[in-house]
């Protein structure tokens, strides 16, 4: 006899008595807090948005920083343009995240539910990538402007040139810059791998399992 048939026969017989909960026992259960991964994912994404917003706004809270920006060699228009752009992107991501969360439905099919959760996670991932790329580009850009426009830097470069150490100067500066970006980026990347790796490991495994054989 088919093993599963035997199991089914037993299963259907209801030989096991389950604890029968009364309505009075069910009511308090409705008030308990959920500990689902969607909830954790939601808190993490809020945390991430806040983290990057604070990181972007932090410098402007201090007078010295504001002065530094005022004296900056970049044009003000450019600076405001970048700031407005940043906030437009932040609001765009908030909107996309909101929409993605709204589309997560526990009454969806198993595959559909997994896909909507993974889609939400993807939006957060794009947001982080955007921040890293944008941050990196901004660092490189300010670095170039500093070199091109700052008279003090030009003087120093001229000094190195007369000393015949120009190549060393460039190598170390660019090397340091790349190293800095890599360390920062790597750190953030590791951090995300850790958070989402732990949170979504099981989901990813199950999703793969479900997708197997699917054409």
């Amino acid at each position: 006899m088919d093993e599963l048939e035997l199991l089914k026969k037993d299963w259907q017989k209801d030989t096991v008595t389950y604890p029968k909960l009364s309505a009075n026992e069910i009511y308090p259960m409705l008030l308990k807090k959920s500990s689902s991964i969607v909830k954790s994912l939601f808190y993490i994404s809020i945390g991430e948005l806040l983290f990057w917003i604070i990181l972007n706004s932090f410098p402007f809270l201090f007078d010295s920083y504001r002065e530094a920006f005022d004296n900056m060699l970049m044009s003000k228009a450019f600076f405001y343009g970048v700031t407005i752009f940043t906030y437009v992107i932040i609001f765009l991501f908030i909107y996309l995240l909101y929409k993605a969360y709204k589309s997560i439905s526990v009454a969806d099919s198993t595959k559909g539910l997994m896909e909507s959760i993974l889609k939400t996670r993807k939006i957060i991932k794009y947001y982080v990538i955007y921040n890293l790329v944008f941050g990196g580009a901004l660092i490189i850009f300010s670095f170039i402007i500093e070199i091109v426009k700052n008279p003090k830097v030009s003087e120093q470069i001229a000094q190195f040139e007369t000393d015949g150490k120009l190549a060393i100067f460039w190598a170390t500066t660019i090397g340091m810059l790349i190293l800095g970006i890599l360390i920062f980026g790597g750190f953030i990347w590791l951090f995300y791998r850790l958070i989402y790796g732990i949170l979504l490991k099981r989901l990813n495994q199950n999703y793969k399992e479900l997708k197997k054989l699917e054409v």
Partner: protein
Amino acid sequence: MKLTKELEHSFVEQLEKHQNIVHKVCRLYTNNQDAHNDLFQEITIQLWKAYPKFRGDSKFSTWMYRVGLNTAITLYRKGKRSINTQHMDDVLYKVKSVEYDDTEEQQLKLLYKAVHQLNDIEKALVFLYLEDKNYREISYTMGISEVNARVKMNRVKTKLRTILNP
């Protein structure tokens, strides 16, 4: 306020009536009573949260299968109580029928144990099969094609056989 009360009332009434579905999901996905209660609690919350959107275009029980399995497979985060630690007694606490002869009872115990070794997706297939759902319903619940459901089911059977007769 009154509306919420009414909603709550109709929900609890239906859940009370169909609670065995939730218990059965918990039976397959957990190995001890604490974990069983914990998962039951989470499924109840998820059902209640989704209930306002339940429009009755499917049966309450069909809807419960989806929410219950989705919670067990995807949403549920195994709590502090470790569900992975398998205690033999815990696995077997659920089988206490005595009306079979020894060999059949023994075989059933081994079968339940084998089912517990399947992965989350395979368990869902077995669960729906045991609940006498056809492939169309399995495909609807899981979101995979009927053909895929069939192929997967056959693989699960083979896997169970391998676990039972290594």
